[in-house]
C-alpha cells in the first residue's frame, strides 16, 4: 500500500471546495434544501468492491464517444499481487478526475480546456484547441491524448452530451457491478454525496493537489515500485497501447 491512501471526509472535502471554488455555498452536511440555481458539482464514486474488471465501461466509453483505437478515455487496471497460493487480483478503473484544481486547465494556452462553472466538468473545446499537448504533459493522471481524427486534446468528459440531457454517463449505466455511481456532489441527498460522506473514500495521487472528483471506495493503491522494494510480486496490466500505468 502506498502512503498516498488518504481518506477524504465530506467535511474536509467541503472545506477544500469552499476555499477552492466560489461555487460552493454550503458548509455543513446537514444543510437544508439548496437553492435551485445552485451550481452542480458532478462527481463519480467507484466502489471497487463491486468492480469485477469486466471492461464493459471501457468498451461502452469507446462506442459512446467513438474513441479511436490506441487511445483511451477509460481503462481498468488489473493489479495482480502476491505469492502462490496467496494471490489476489484487484481492479482499478481509471478515468479523468474532473479535478477541482485541474492542471490541464491552468497550463492550456488557448483556454480550450476549462472547467465548467455550472457543473464542474472539465472539457476540451475542440474548436479552440490547437493540439499543443501541454495539457497532456500536465495531467498527473495521464488521462489525456491527442485524438488522431481531430488533432485536438481529448479525454473523458463525463459524457457531457448525455449528462447535459439528464442521462448518466455510458460507462455508468453499463457497469455490471454497479460499481460506478455518478451524481451531484453539491446535492447532499445525491448518492455520490451519501457515499462520500459515509465511506472511507480515497482519490488517486492526492499529493498532486488536484482535488479529484472521482472517489474510490476500497481502491487498491498498490504501486509496483513499492512492492518491488518489499519483494512482493505485483503486475499491473492496463490493457492499453501504453502498457504501463501512467
Amino acid at each position, binding site marked *: 500500500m502506498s502512503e498516498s491512501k488518504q481518506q477524504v471526509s465530506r467535511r474536509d472535502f467541503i472545506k477544500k471546495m469552499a476555499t477552492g471554488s466560489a461555487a460552493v455555498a454550503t458548509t455543513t452536511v446537514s444543510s437544508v434544501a439548496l437553492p435551485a440555481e445552485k451550481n452542480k458539482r458532478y462527481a463519480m464514486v467507484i466502489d471497487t468492491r463491486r468492480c469485477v474488471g469486466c471492461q464493459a465501461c471501457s468498451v461502452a466509453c469507446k462506442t459512446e464517444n467513438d474513441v479511436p483505437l490506441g487511445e483511451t478515455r477509460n481503462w481498468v487496471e488489473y493489479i495482480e499481487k502476491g505469492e502462490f497460493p496467496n494471490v489476489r487480483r484487484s481492479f482499478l478503473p481509471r478515468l479523468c478526475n474532473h479535478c477541482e484544481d485541474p492542471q490541464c486547465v491552468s497550463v*492550456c*494556452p488557448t483556454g480550450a480546456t476549462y472547467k465548467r462553472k455550472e457543473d464542474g466538468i472539465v472539457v476540451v473545446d475542440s474548436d479552440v484547441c*490547437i493540439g*499543443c499537448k501541454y495539457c497532456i*504533459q500536465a495531467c*498527473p493522471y495521464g488521462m489525456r491524448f491527442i485524438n488522431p481524427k481531430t*488533432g*485536438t486534446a481529448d479525454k473523458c468528459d463525463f459524457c457531457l452530451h448525455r449528462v447535459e440531457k439528464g442521462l448518466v454517463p455510458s460507462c455508468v449505466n453499463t457497469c455490471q457491478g454497479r460499481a460506478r455511481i455518478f451524481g451531484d456532489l453539491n446535492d447532499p441527498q445525491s448518492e455520490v454525496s451519501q457515499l462520500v460522506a459515509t465511506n472511507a473514500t480515497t482519490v488517486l495521487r492526492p499529493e498532486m*493537489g488536484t482535488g479529484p472528483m472521482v472517489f474510490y471506495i476500497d481502491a487498491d493503491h498498490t504501486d509496483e515500485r513499492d512492492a518491488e522494494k518489499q519483494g512482493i510480486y505485483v503486475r499491473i496490466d492496463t490493457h492499453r497501447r501504453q502498457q504501463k500505468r501512467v
Partner: protein
Amino acid sequence: MHELTWGLPVILYLFLGGLGAGAGAVSASVLLRSGGGDQAGLGFKIARCGALIAPIPVILGTGLIVLELGTFQAGNWFRFINLFKVINLSPMSIGSWVLGLFIMVSLVYAYTFLKADPHPGDDRHQLRKLSAWAMVILGVGVALYTGILLGAMPARPFWNSPILAMLFLVSALSTGVAVILLGRSVFGKHVDKEGKTTSDAYLLASSDMLLIGFEILVIFLFIMYSHLTIGSVKVAMGVILGGELTTLFWFGFVFLGLLLPILIELKYVIPTLLFQKQYEIPRSMEVLVSVLVLIGGFLLRYVVVIAGQITGSIGI
C-alpha cells in the same frame, strides 16, 4: 513507459529558441555594455554578429513547433493562431507572446545592423539602442520561459524544479555565445597569418567559460536537490543517474558539452587571465569549442525533454 508526446521538433525548438534568444541577449548586452554601442570596434562587431544570427534559429524553432501541433498534423494548418486570440497565465501563452515579441524585435534589431556599413551613430542608432534594451529583456524571457514551460508541472517530476529554468537560461546564453563565436570564426576576418584569432575573441571566450562554469554549478544543484529528495522526483532522476539516459547525460551533455569545452577554453584563457598574455586560440579550437557547447546545449534539451516524459508520478 510513458508516451513521448513531445518529440524532436519540440526538443529542437527548445534548443534553437534558447540559442537564438541567448545570441540576441548576448549581442544586445555586449552592445549596451560598450556604452550603448556608441563606439565602433570589438563590441559592436560581436553585437552585429549576434543580432544577425538571433532571429533565424528562433523563427526556425517556432516553425518546428507548429509542425508538432496536433491540429497542424491533422491538416488544420492555421489553428495555431488561436494562441494569439487569448492571453492567460499559462506559461505557454505568456511564452508565445514573449516569443512573438522577441521575433519581431529581433528582426527590427537585426535590421539596424543590416546596412552595408553599419556603425555606431548611424541613422538606425536610436532604434538599435532601443531595441537592444528590449532584446535583453525578451531574450532572457524566452530563454527562461522554455524552462518554466517544462518546470511548471508537478505531473512531470523530472522537470518540476525552478532550477530548470535557471539551467535553461544559462545554457541558452552559453549556446548564444557559442553560436556567435562560431559565426565569427567561420565568417569573420579576425584571423592573423598564423591562423590564430585575435584578442577580440577573448571577451566571448571568457564569458562563455564563465557561463559554462555557472552551468556546471546549476547542474550540480539540480542533481543534488533531486537526488536528496525522495519519491517521484528521485525515481525520475533515476533515468540520468543510472537509467536509460545516463550515458547520454553524463558523457554527451556533461562531458562533451560542458567539461571538454571549458577545459579547452581554460587552456587558452588562463594565460591571458593570469599572465596578461595575448589571447590566442587556433581557429579550429574555437570552432571545436563552440560546436561542443552547441551539442551540449542540444543534448541537454534532448535528455531533459525525454527524461521528463518517460517518468511520472509514482504511486497511485
